């Protein structure tokens, strides 16, 4: 009883103190970047230090896009969505249609949206536009690049100034590297993203602009035949992405094609001379590389939270706000001149123009993506031929999209 009385007496004081602190609008930023010293935390801390009347709360709620989306869905269903969430490009259609990612033009108006997007490189606005709606800020963008263990490259007697710009020229050199050093020549990551780069560089598409699966076109078959060639040549031992990164970091592989965003981790572990190069294209075909990563999307349903999110976006889009972010290995997507040492290859690719990551349409889009990855895996493991596998993928994806 005494405790109750004391609490009752103290309550007004607590409420007054609380209301003074809550003068700032508080918004949650749900993300997947772990570690107290991750650049995401530095960006948020720098913003909060500016005391602009908005306080951003960092909420790392998982380490995959699916994990954070699952948790966000519970909040959305309960009417308490996160104000901002890092959303994977592959989830873009799902985010717009199922999670309710907001169109910037609707919530901020055309003028303020244009002013915000003017901080970003021309062309990126299209990448962030899904079904006619601009739903994200291109914050975390990566592209496939070639990681070369230059110690092994030189040890094999290969010219360090002559890293090839086509896949057809790369393979014989990777074979030489393997024969002369005894280390594995080359490795590709097995997923949907790197094969997308091959298919686009052959002139094809995984899914066309009007949402039709096209991964078994003649161009795509040509591309994936080139993709699996090193497996047939015996210079690519297929590993999972985790195993691949571990093996490359330990110096056991000569050349690795993977996301430019992995470089911050790889650089800290690699005990050899590492160099990054643009992802080679296909001989005689125009380059058309893809991007990946995630964007910042707004899920807030009330006006105050949305406005607070805009204040944070304006900070993120500024030179001051973007500089610490580059330590991740993601590209400088802004128009600001910011140094990103070591990431020149990715930036050269960005300057050459990038397409978006494949967006998997419909409520069963993520299942379609999974089906496609599994067919790619079957092809790479030699369980089916390239035309069979791509046809299988197209049929599976078509069925899932049409059932939606």
């Amino acid at each position, binding site marked *: 009883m005494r405790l109750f009385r004391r609490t009752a007496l103290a309550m007004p004081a607590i409420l007054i103190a609380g209301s003074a602190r809550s003068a700032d609008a508080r918004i949650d930023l749900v993300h997947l970047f772990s570690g107290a010293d991750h650049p995401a935390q530095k960006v948020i801390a720098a913003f909060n230090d500016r005391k602009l009347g908005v306080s951003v709360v960092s909420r790392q709620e998982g380490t995959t896009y699916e994990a954070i989306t699952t948790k966000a869905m519970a909040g959305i*269903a309960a009417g308490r969505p996160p104000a901002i969430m890092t959303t994977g490009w592959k989830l873009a259609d799902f985010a717009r249609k199922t999670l309710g990612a907001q169109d910037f033009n609707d919530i901020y108006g055309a003028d303020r949206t244009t002013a915000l997007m003017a901080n970003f490189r021309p062309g990126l606005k299209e990448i962030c536009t899904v079904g006619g709606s601009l739903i994200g800020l291109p914050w975390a963008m990566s592209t496939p690049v070639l990681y070369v263990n230059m110690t092994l490259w030189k040890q094999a007697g290969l010219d360090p100034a002559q890293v090839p710009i086509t896949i057809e020229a790369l393979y014989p050199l990777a074979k030489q590297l393997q024969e002369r050093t005894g280390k594995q020549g080359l490795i590709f990551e097995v997923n949907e993203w790197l094969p997308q780069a091959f298919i686009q560089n052959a002139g094809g598409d995984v899914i066309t602009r009007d949402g039709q699966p096209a991964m078994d076109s003649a161009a795509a078959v040509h591309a994936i035949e080139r993709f699996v060639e090193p497996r047939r040549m015996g210079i690519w031992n*297929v590993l999972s992405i985790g*195993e691949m990164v571990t*093996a490359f970091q330990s110096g*056991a592989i000569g050349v690795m094609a993977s996301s430019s965003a992995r470089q911050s981790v790889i650089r800290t572990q690699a005990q050899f001379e590492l160099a990054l190069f643009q992802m080679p294209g296909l001989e005689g075909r125009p380059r058309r590389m893809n991007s990946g990563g995630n964007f910042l999307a707004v899920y807030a349903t009330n006006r105050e939270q949305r406005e607070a999110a805009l204040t944070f976006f304006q900070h993120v889009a500024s030179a001051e706000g973007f500089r610490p972010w580059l330590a991740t290995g993601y590209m400088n997507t802004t128009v600001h001149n910011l140094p990103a040492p070591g990431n020149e290859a990715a930036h050269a690719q960005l300057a050459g123009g990038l397409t978006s990551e494949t967006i998997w349409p419909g409520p069963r889009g*993520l*299942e379609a993506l999974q089906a496609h990855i*599994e067919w790619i895996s*079957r092809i790479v493991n030699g369980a089916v031929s390239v035309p069979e596998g791509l046809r299988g993928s197209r049929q599976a994806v078509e069925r899932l999209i049409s059932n939606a």
Partner: protein
Amino acid sequence: MSGESPGARASRPHRRAAPRRERARGPRSQGGAPIWWLMAAPAVVLCLAFVWLPMAATFGLSVVDVNVLRSAAVWRGLAHYGDTLANPDFHLALKNTAIYLAVLLPLQIIVPLLLAYALMHLAGRVVSLYRGALFLPAVLSFPIAAVVWLWLFNPVVGVLNAVLTALGGMPQRWLNDPDMAIYAVCAVSFWKCFGLNLPIFAAALANVPPELRQAAALDGAGPWRRAWHVELPLISPTLFFAGVTTLLLVLDEIVGAVDVLTEGGPFKTSTNLLYFLYERAFRHFQFGEAAAVATLIMALVAVATWLQFRMFERRVHYA
């Protein structure tokens, strides 16, 4: 029964009548019913809140499609069940679950039992040392254990392939070979879980009265006959308990290993029913179908446990 004495026969009705008398002396007759109900209430409420209601909610979710934005549910009837049963990935997950059970269930019972026998015949401090070492993997969480194994399994820089090639063998893609991945997951799961049954069997064997062993030995029974005819029947309730709990463990706990080691791949060759359920719910966000899968799994587990009781409980000797 022919050798039964009249006195024994006469005592049978008394034994049967005893429960009736106990029932007659039950709480109601003592006027203490509210107290008994009150004492049982916390357990009943917890069971309702965390077992029965979620089960009912899962079944409810399995017959609708839910849109999180509109919080509206669309009636689908049994369509999710039909879709699931027609899905080839579900068939593969079912087949893989049967493989996991066929490999792991006997291993998780027989190996700890043999080790418990071996430990029983050891003396001195070395016993606790061995017990501790053998139990150690069981206290690790699956993700941590699997991360350690990821290093060992790495085809390029892993220890296993280094040993294999040093012995003149061919390096293997343990987790990426579609024919090998499921057995690699079995190996990790076995390493992680076999220690759980070890102290249970050791305790059961320690409780076997030594005079029975001595009597059997005096009658000329060797170690094998003593184990088969004296010790195993006496520890059969423990074996039965371990069988039921290990079945649930193999079905349930392996998901952590599958997720970290292979994510069910390559192309679903190492998935199982629970991982299939996890993917439907938390990767593809098809909650209605996932709920249907969960309901089917509940039914399968209930049938498997019932079969275990039907097949093995009659062979259990309760002292």
